[in-house]
């Protein structure tokens, strides 16, 4: 061990540490894999005001405001979140900043937890801001500190691009001293030509940012982190991010140009490297972002068309692709062994709602959250899933296009957190354009899919403070929806009848299905479902509930349910679904096993 303190940190934790050491005083985010833990980690540093924002656009604007005020601010989001925040991103490159602003974006190669596999590096080029890419946790931490210096020196937001592998890998990090003198904001100074983007100012600022890009490219050529590692010169590889580590593993003898500022690129360094190697490869994850720019410099890239553009890389995958001179398939194990499909938790309110929806039979425009799983077996209840908040708007469009053909048969589903993220605008549109779609709000009082974060609905802040939380009924009423009902999703008959009523209503309607996420309070169940084998006819209605606690067994000559009592929480949805009365709840006697084994007589319940 060296004298310097080294800690094992994930990429996300390292980013948070780097922000703390940089004297960041305001940090914002909206939860999303792979970046959720950045803000969660930041909330533990006392000098940082860490906040979950309503959505990524708001998160960006709050961080920008803090930077305008002369504070160092950091905003973190997943790749698709940057699409939401793109508007302020582009214009803030024009205004410039005052205190430093670092924008962290996490891409998700292989789309492990995402609706697309976008390469967010294109944003740096499109929005004209500098971008840095770390290769491990140590560099992630160090680059946050350097990104703030770069941001303030060039008066621009800086994009720090991560990928899931880096975010979720733990490597050793030597921590530094925090710049606590930087925590206090220096103050906002009015500068009309800079901060007020009227058309004339926008053109002036555009000239300024083109000049800034030239200066940033020169900086890239002088910056030590864009580094040539000379080894064998018969093969030279240009690479960046976590792909650098794969390259070092796969081609230990090759010379490497490790690019850390990947926009704007260090053209002179690239030329120097290319001229002195026999064969030049460019190895990067997802799009040929570097490769196309290298080729635009008039440099021949031997690996053109070899590197996979879909799915995550591994050292072995790039080795094979280069060897065979063609992109090789994703390496995620034996494809003949089926993967495990994610399931809704046993006893979740969504089971009841989806069972009711399946019985009614409607077209459903879905959204992003745990309830997206309603698109899978056995319900097949959701027909479209696009992005956060897309469900309501998509339903309005279907309704306008199909008219009477979908009247009373069209439902938009959205969770409480997603509704507040980006569903209120579409809901307003539904009222404004006199649509008749029914919106089902799945209110579980949390942002469940990403790990139970606070949101404006439950009022709980990133720091753990309790707030009032929004009243959804009043909010929806104020938007102009007159027909609003709240259902108990554990009452199957009520859910079905209220949903039918809503669908029949001539005008827009909202049904709020309300029950807290079971993970919020993991209580021991007081009752569980039990099967009466004599009464069961094997109709299979209980399987349509889709509960993971309902397994299958063969009795008589048919398939009957087998309740897994390790999982059953006693919600009674399957009991209600059974038309034969073969399933019934039974109270749990504490320590049943012990009593059973101690006493000679069977216990009557």
């Amino acid at each position: 061990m060296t004298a310097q303190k080294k800690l094992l940190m994930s990429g996300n934790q390292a980013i948070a540490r780097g922000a703390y050491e940089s004297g960041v005083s305001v940090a914002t985010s909206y939860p999303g894999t792979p970046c959720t833990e950045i803000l969660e980690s930041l909330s533990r540093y006392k000098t940082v005001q860490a906040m979950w924002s309503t959505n990524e656009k708001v998160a960006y604007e709050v961080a920008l405001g803090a930077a305008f005020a002369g504070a160092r601010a950091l905003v973190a989001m997943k790749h698709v979140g940057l699409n939401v925040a793109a508007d302020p991103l582009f214009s803030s490159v024009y205004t410039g900043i005052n205190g430093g602003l670092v924008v962290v974006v996490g891409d998700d190669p292989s789309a492990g937890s995402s609706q697309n596999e976008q390469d967010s590096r294109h944003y740096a080029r499109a929005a004209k801001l500098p971008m840095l890419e770390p290769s491990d946790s140590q560099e992630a931490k160090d680059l946050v500190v350097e990104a703030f210096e770069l941001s303030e020196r060039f008066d621009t937001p800086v994009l720090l691009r991560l990928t899931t592998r880096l975010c979720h890998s733990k490597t050793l990090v030597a921590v530094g001293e925090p710049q606590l003198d930087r925590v206090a904001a220096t103050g906002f100074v009015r500068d009309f030509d800079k901060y007020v983007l009227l058309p004339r100012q926008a053109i002036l600022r555009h000239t300024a940012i083109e000049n800034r890009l030239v200066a940033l490219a020169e900086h890239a050529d002088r910056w030590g982190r864009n580094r040539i590692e000379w080894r064998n010169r018969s093969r030279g590889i240009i690479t960046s991010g976590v792909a650098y580590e794969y390259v070092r593993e796969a081609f230990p003898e090759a010379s490497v140009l490790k690019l850390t500022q990947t926009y704007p690129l260090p053209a002179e360094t690239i030329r120097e490297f290319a001229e002195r190697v026999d064969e030049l490869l460019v190895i990067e994850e997802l799009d040929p972002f570097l490769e196309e720019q290298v080729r635009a410099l008039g440099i021949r890239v031997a690996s053109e068309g070899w590197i996979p553009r879909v799915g995550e890389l591994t050292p072995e995958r790039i080795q094979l692709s280069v060897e065979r001179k063609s992109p090789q398939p994703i390496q995620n194990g034996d494809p003949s062994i089926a993967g495990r499909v994610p399931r809704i938790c046993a006893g979740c309110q969504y089971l009841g709602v989806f069972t009711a929806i399946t019985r009614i039979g409607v077209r459903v425009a879905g959204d992003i959250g745990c309830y997206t799983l309603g698109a899978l077996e056995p319900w097949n209840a959701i027909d479209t899933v696009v992005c956060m908040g897309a469900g309501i708007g998509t339903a309005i469009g279907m309704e306008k296009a199909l008219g009477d053909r979908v009247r009373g048969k069209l439902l938009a589903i959205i969770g409480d957190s997603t509704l507040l993220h980006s569903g209120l605008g579409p809901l307003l549109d539904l009222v404004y354009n006199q649509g008749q779609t029914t919106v089902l709000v799945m209110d579980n009082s949390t942002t469940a899919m990403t790990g139970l974060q606070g949101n404006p609905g439950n009022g709980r802040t990133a720091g753990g403070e309790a707030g009032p939380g929004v009243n959804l009924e009043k909010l929806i009423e104020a938007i102009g929806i007159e027909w609003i009902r709240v259902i108990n999703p554990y009452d199957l008959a009520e859910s079905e009848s209220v949903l039918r009523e809503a669908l029949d209503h001539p005008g827009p309607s909202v049904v709020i299905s309300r029950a807290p996420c079971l993970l919020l309070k993991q209580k021991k169940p007081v009752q569980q479902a039990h099967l009466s084998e004599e009464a069961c006819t094997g109709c299979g209605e209980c399987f349509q509930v889709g509960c993971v606690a309902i397994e299958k067994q063969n009795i008589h000559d048919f398939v009957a349910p087998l309740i897994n009592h390790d999982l059953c929480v006693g919600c009674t949805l399957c009991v209600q679904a059974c038309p034969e009365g073969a399933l019934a709840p039974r109270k749990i006697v504490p320590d049943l096993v012990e009593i059973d084994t101690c006493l000679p007589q069977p216990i009557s319940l």
Partner: protein
Amino acid sequence: MPAPTDLPLTVLIAGLGGQGVVLAGDLLLAAALHAGFDVKKSEIHGLSRRFGSVSCQVRIGRDLHSPLRGHGGVDLLLALEGYEALKQLPFLKPTGLALVNRLWRKPGAMSPADQTAPAQANDRRLQWFAGTELTHQAESARSLNFYMLGVLASRLQIAEEFWTAALDGLRTNDSTEANREMFAAGLRAGQAAGKRRPRVTTK
């Protein structure tokens, strides 16, 4: 026997959500750190809470680069369930070794009766352990990850004191006597099995 002398060493740990794969990986990481090695760990836990697969890779060595290896790059596979072992088998080197808990939970199947082992289960690199059975007998079913970590420890030349240091570093709710006992039981089972059947070197 793969040992930290054959550096770098890559271990892949796989299982189901709730089995404690990530914790087992963290303990291996801690033991290797105490032993003075450079370590890197990569986790995949996307939908683990919802009955998905969980896996992590731990790399042990000096001046490591990649946090993970691809197909054919892993020295040791530790699996807490049969299908997870077979799913990850392409990652194992031809000379590698898989230490697998005898438990089958077929993906997509809702019935425990519907559990037949696929042909890949005959791969000679697999070595089976009755972790589920033994931890159930000891009424420590939740310590399965510790039992299998003990099995893994029997195949690594990381001194016992470093494992003890790793176990001592656990948070109080994980630092139970049952977990320590099951780790020790797994270590003994691994050592006994190692004597009976040396490391498989052919495919």
